[in-house]
């Protein structure tokens, strides 16, 4: 144990632990306890129903797809914002934070208004047979919306830190632009891309406010897992069922946190070797 020179150790750790304890640790323990009390059979009785399984499939499936789309769109946006100078670049850069800062319920009703059959975009898509609002496509869209800034903001500092030396070297060795991108840049960006992907995924899995309006919450079709948790608490007072489902969601978040920590460790080791 090293000697503590500065004062305030007990005060600062005490307050930190008091807030963490009452807001995070105690509730976490209560959830784990309630889920464990059910036992494996009781847990499966709550989670194994057709309705819950359908919602979990939609939540995880749509989130995986949305995070993938976010990586592609986010890479494009981050690349353009860092590498090129154009009109309204600063405005665009500031706008990227919008899904972070816009209340999710507001984003939800705005997306619904746009894509509803009588909305600006919806009225143009519905004649083509594309229904975004009140369909799984809507769930996907809302998840892409909330996840985008995570990818852009994780990539931007890494792109800024690359000084172009390696790209120039690849150029002098005769690499084409596509080769330079795929074989020089992409490996350098990979840790940030994976971290951005995991962050967007975690957010999309747990997202509630921006999804429930556009999804329409149709039974077996467009119900997401967080919506079912709310239903169980709000109208059925089924706290054990909610806890069983919540435990699945929490396990997914913790797994993603561990994966992110592993990626960061791996990236650091790799950076040292380089």
């Amino acid at each position: 144990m090293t000697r503590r020179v500065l004062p305030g150790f007990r005060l600062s750790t005490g307050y930190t632990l008091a807030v963490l304890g009452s807001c995070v640790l105690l509730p976490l323990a209560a959830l784990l306890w309630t889920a464990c009390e059910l036992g494996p059979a009781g847990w499966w009785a709550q989670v194994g129903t057709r309705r819950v399984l359908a919602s979990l499939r939609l939540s995880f499936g749509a989130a995986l797809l949305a995070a993938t789309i976010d990586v592609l769109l986010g890479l494009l946006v981050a690349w353009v914002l860092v590498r090129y100078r154009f009109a309204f670049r600063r405005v665009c850069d500031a706008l990227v934070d919008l899904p972070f800062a816009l209340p999710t319920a507001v984003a939800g009703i705005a997306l619904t208004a746009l894509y509803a059959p009588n909305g600006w975009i919806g009225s143009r898509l519905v004649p083509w047979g594309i229904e975004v609002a009140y369909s799984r496509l809507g769930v996907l869209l809302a998840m892409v919306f909330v996840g985008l800034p995570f990818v852009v903001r994780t990539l931007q500092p890494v792109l800024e830190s690359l000084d172009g030396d390696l790209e120039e070297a690849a150029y002098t060795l005769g690499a084409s632009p596509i080769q330079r991108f795929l074989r020089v840049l992409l490996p350098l960006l990979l840790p940030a891309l994976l971290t951005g992907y995991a962050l967007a995924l975690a957010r999309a899995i747990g997202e509630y406010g921006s999804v429930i309006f556009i999804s329409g919450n149709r039974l077996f079709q467009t119900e997401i897992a967080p919506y079912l948790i709310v239903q169980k608490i709000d109208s059925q007072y089924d706290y054990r069922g909610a806890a069983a489902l919540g435990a699945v969601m929490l396990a997914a978040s913790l797994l993603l946190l561990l994966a992110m920590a592993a990626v960061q460790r791996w990236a650091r080791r790799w950076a040292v070797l380089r």
Partner: protein
Amino acid sequence: MAVVAATISIGGRPTWPISLARTVLVLCALLVLGWLLVLPLLAIFAEALRPGVAFYLDAIRQPDTLAAVRLTLTVAAIAVPLNLLFGLAAAWAMTHFEFRGKALLGALIDLPFSVSPVVAGMMLILVYGKYGWLGSWLEAHGVQVIFALPGLVLATVFVTLPFVARELIPLMQAQGSEQEEAALTLGANGWQIFFRVTLPRVRWALLYGVLLCNARAMGEFGAVYVVSGHLRGLTNTLPLQVDQLYEENFAAAFAVASLLALLTLVTLGIKRLLEWRHGGELKGRH
């Protein structure tokens, strides 16, 4: 090398295939941002103002909406200072001391960002609700947490917990403890060190964290939805009011939503200003 640099680097004037690719990429990015971010923002204000300015003003002056504004401000006024203190305490503990479980503490501080807000609200009910761990004790002492203001505050504190700490910890880590230790050898006590040495060096990062914390506190929906019971005029915050109005009065819901959208725009504006004026002092941020 000059030719090479010109084709790749940021400032140079590139040859035509590269400039074409550049233009196409910029247009694609603008299209993505316009479609995904700008259109929803415009839709809020368009829908809010569609029935006319008189209707708009009337909608945001309804007693229930004003009650929601008051409640949102009250919740933020309690939760944000709590998290400001939490951020300072956590950063002080994490950057000035070595102790066992420090890595775990750091992970716990970040945890609320990856937990679904709905799950957060449910966990609070399992502890503080009527049938929760502390339910009967709280009831015996006449304290109602869930479906009341304390529950709203707890849920808000949970979802905004990492904001201030996350800005301060990397910054204070980068600054080190030397100046604080120098002040100590010159005879300053703990509070003097904190207020005269530490605080002035982190004030902009602190403000930055508080700004983001406040935006999330006023806009939180999922976690608050679960613990509020959404009693109109009593436990409805602004986002919950938007949700309830959406079912009955479309345009009024968008009028209230536009207030929250305005708050978002102001927040983003101040955030940009802080990054632009004090970017150096926010460094260490990731």
